[in-house]
């Protein structure tokens, strides 16, 4: 498909949008290696402005000047690695961009609102390539729900979004999806060890501390973890069932 897609009838567009927006949060995998989160164009369709409705190609076509914030369903501590933007940029004078933004949640007491762009997360379409994609370089940013976004030295409660912007004239540019490469991380350990037999110098210090802080283990008694002890099948069951909150099937 080339050029601006032919608008489809309004009720059909609405049906598309309803069906796809809920599926925009792709599944997440486990482990600490790179994985990909794909955020489809469903959340970008615009039910009020007709041109933004999802088209038969599955892309959304926001007008120039339209801004959208889409959910970013990633876990605490996730490291952002790269952001790629899939577009249908088919004419001069138009483009689209995507970035990750952090919205400060303002407590009482005269705080000021703030929206910060995550460094190195902005990517824009730069030429009339038609269907194609653009990627950032390495982002290297850790998502934390409490972080100092306004630079005043005080941690702020934060909510993260993907921000997509259309630029140019009324003739819209298509946005297919934002694909984020990210990975899970084990949290940094506390300064003071929880267990007497797992000091900060232990090779698994951070990992054992993470399990304790998550409520998955309280050690083997007496303020110890017994890191060198063998594991029974019973103990494995306790570790896993607590970690995953098993099993609530009907």
């Amino acid at each position, binding site marked *: 498909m080339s050029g601006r897609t032919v608008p489809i009838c309004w009720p059909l567009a*609405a049906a598309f*949008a*309803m069906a796809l*927006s*809920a599926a*925009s949060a792709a599944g997440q*995998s*486990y*482990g600490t*290696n*790179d994985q*990909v989160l794909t955020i489809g164009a469903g*959340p*970008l369709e*615009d*039910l*009020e402005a007709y041109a933004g409705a999802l088209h038969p190609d599955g892309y959304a076509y926001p007008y120039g000047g339209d*801004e*959208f*914030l889409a*959910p970013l*369903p*990633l*876990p*605490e501590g996730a490291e952002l690695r790269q952001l790629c933007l899939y577009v249908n940029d088919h004419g001069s004078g138009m483009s689209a961009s995507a970035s990750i*933004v952090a*919205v400060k*949640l*303002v*407590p*009482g007491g005269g*705080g000021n*609102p703030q*929206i910060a762009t995550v460094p190195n997360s902005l990517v824009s379409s730069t030429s009339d390539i038609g269907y194609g994609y653009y990627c950032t370089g390495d982002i290297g940013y850790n998502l934390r*729900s409490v972080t100092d976004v306004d630079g005043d030295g005080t941690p702020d*409660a934060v*909510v*993260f*979004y993907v921000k997509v912007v259309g630029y140019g004239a009324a003739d819209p540019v298509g946005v297919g999806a934002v694909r984020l490469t990210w990975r899970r991380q084990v949290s940094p350990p506390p300064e003071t060890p929880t267990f007497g037999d797992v000091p900060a110098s232990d090779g698994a210090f951070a990992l054992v501390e993470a399990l304790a*802080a*998550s*409520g*998955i283990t309280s050690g083997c008694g007496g303020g110890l973890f017994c890191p060198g002890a063998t*594991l*029974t*099948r*019973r*103990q*494995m*069951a306790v570790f*896993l*069932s*607590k*970690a*995953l*909150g*098993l*099993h*609530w*099937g009907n």
Partner: protein
Amino acid sequence: MRHPKRPSGSRILVATTLAIAFRAPFVAGQSYGTNDQTLTIGMAEAPLTSAGFIDTDGYLYDTGFDEPGPPFVVPLHLPDGAEVRQVCAYANDLHADTSAMLSLIAVKLVPGGGGDPYVLTIPGSAIQTTPGAGYSSYCTGSMAYTLRNAVDLDGDQVPDNTVYFLKVEPGYHGGIGAVLVTWGRQVSPPPDTPTFGDVPANDVSFPHIEALAASGITAGCGGGNYCPNALLTRRQMAVYLAKAFGLHWTD
């Protein structure tokens, strides 16, 4: 002081109907373990032309003209058996006469056969913003409500299939930043009848081992036993983890 834009045109009514129920929320990450963790539900259900619009502060402002904007719900993405422990909200209440209401609700899914619909406000989950307070945060007291996919909501002794939402009833000229739900995972209660002959109901790890078996992570060590005191080999560890997490499906 922020004032909502005034969307023009009759399409607002159409959009209102469509947008209310189907927006995916911002789903903040979920972590593991049974300790407290926080689910952050942002309001940028872009573009939410009905329920409101996102202003330059990242907050959602209602589209009410001379009255509060329409109520809306967003999904509550928590696992079955999650215990809700507290709800907090960040809001920018700009009008001296009205306030916004936020709560967690359970909606009964009505089967055939003449059942009646039912919506339950989860006890202790409601938050009302303070009229004219400007930017402020609010929290409920401590809660201990377990979310179940099937639970008797309407008190007729029959379990109802249930879906949970965050419900937002905007004030007039008010902004909502996000709702933070403090919650924790729980290990499910064990069955009445033990699955394994060597893990009776009085075993301290009875609920944990039953939970693993019910999840399909282990089938025991054969002969209807689990061998709870047997040492775990690295091979068995690999099987447990790979099954538990459904590894590994990337490209």
